[in-house]
């Protein structure tokens, strides 16, 4: 059973745990990346949010997002571009609470839409965001190899 104490802004002292959670998910340790995220999305950054979910024992998950204005022709909306939860803390509502926490911050910032971008070969993450009520956005991500 997971008893979340709170969802709060990430601190430098959280980074080791965030890096470990991310590495457990992706297989990659990215200390420089996460230091950069903290610098750009940490406390007191306007419209940028790097939150962690903590219990008494540890950080159980993280979520990163921001309000983006007029990108891809869209009025300002919230974007979630990072979310991770410790495997042993899953299915306990940690992800849902973090998403709700960042969405509340998006609402206070004045936006009414939240979006994210997901790997279509990751059914677990797709299913999570779907379970929170998200449906396909009116965008199609395109890519090409640079030769």
């Amino acid at each position: 059973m997971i008893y979340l104490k709170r969802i709060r802004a990430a601190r430098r002292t959280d980074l080791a745990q965030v890096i470990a959670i991310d590495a457990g998910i992706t297989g990659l340790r990215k200390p420089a990346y996460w230091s950069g995220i903290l610098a750009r999305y940490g406390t007191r950054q306007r419209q940028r949010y790097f939150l962690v979910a903590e219990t008494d024992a540890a950080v159980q998950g993280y979520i990163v997002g921001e309000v983006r204005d007029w990108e891809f022709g869209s009025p300002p909306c919230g974007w979630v571009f990072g979310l991770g939860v410790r495997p042993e803390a899953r299915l306990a509502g940690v992800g849902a609470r973090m998403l709700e926490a960042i969405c509340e911050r998006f609402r206070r910032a004045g936006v009414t839409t939240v979006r994210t971008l997901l790997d279509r070969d990751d059914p677990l993450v797709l299913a999570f965001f779907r379970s929170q009520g998200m449906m396909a956005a009116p965008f199609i991500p395109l890519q090409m190899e640079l030769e």
Partner: protein
Amino acid sequence: MKLQQNARLALYAALEFAADPTRQLSAAEIAAKYRISTHHLAKVLRKLGRAGLLRAARGVGGGYRFAANAKRVTLLDVIGLFEQIGATRPRGARRNEERALDEVLAEIDEIARATFGSITLATMLKLVGRHARRPQAQPGRAG
């Protein structure tokens, strides 16, 4: 996109059962709600039973109960019992025009599979609930 009728009926039936796993339902009850053939639906339910989604209920009245985990069963799991999302395409040397069109169709198939594979019955029931809260027209015949 269109689903074959059996797949569509199977989804409706799976949602009916998943909405209340303690409830015993017969083909006739569901068929009456969706105004479809009881005989046809019974075949669909037997297939869902063989796949482990439903369990035949003993006793008077018969029928089935939901036997799976609505948070784990996806729309693709149900649809896949009745049809394949994405056509199989012939291998071997083919014209460039055929390969180019196949690449486009494969892209659409992948999106369809990812969409169906990411929506569980539990999530679908939440979507049903959101539609129930919106003003809506009278339900028509199930297609």
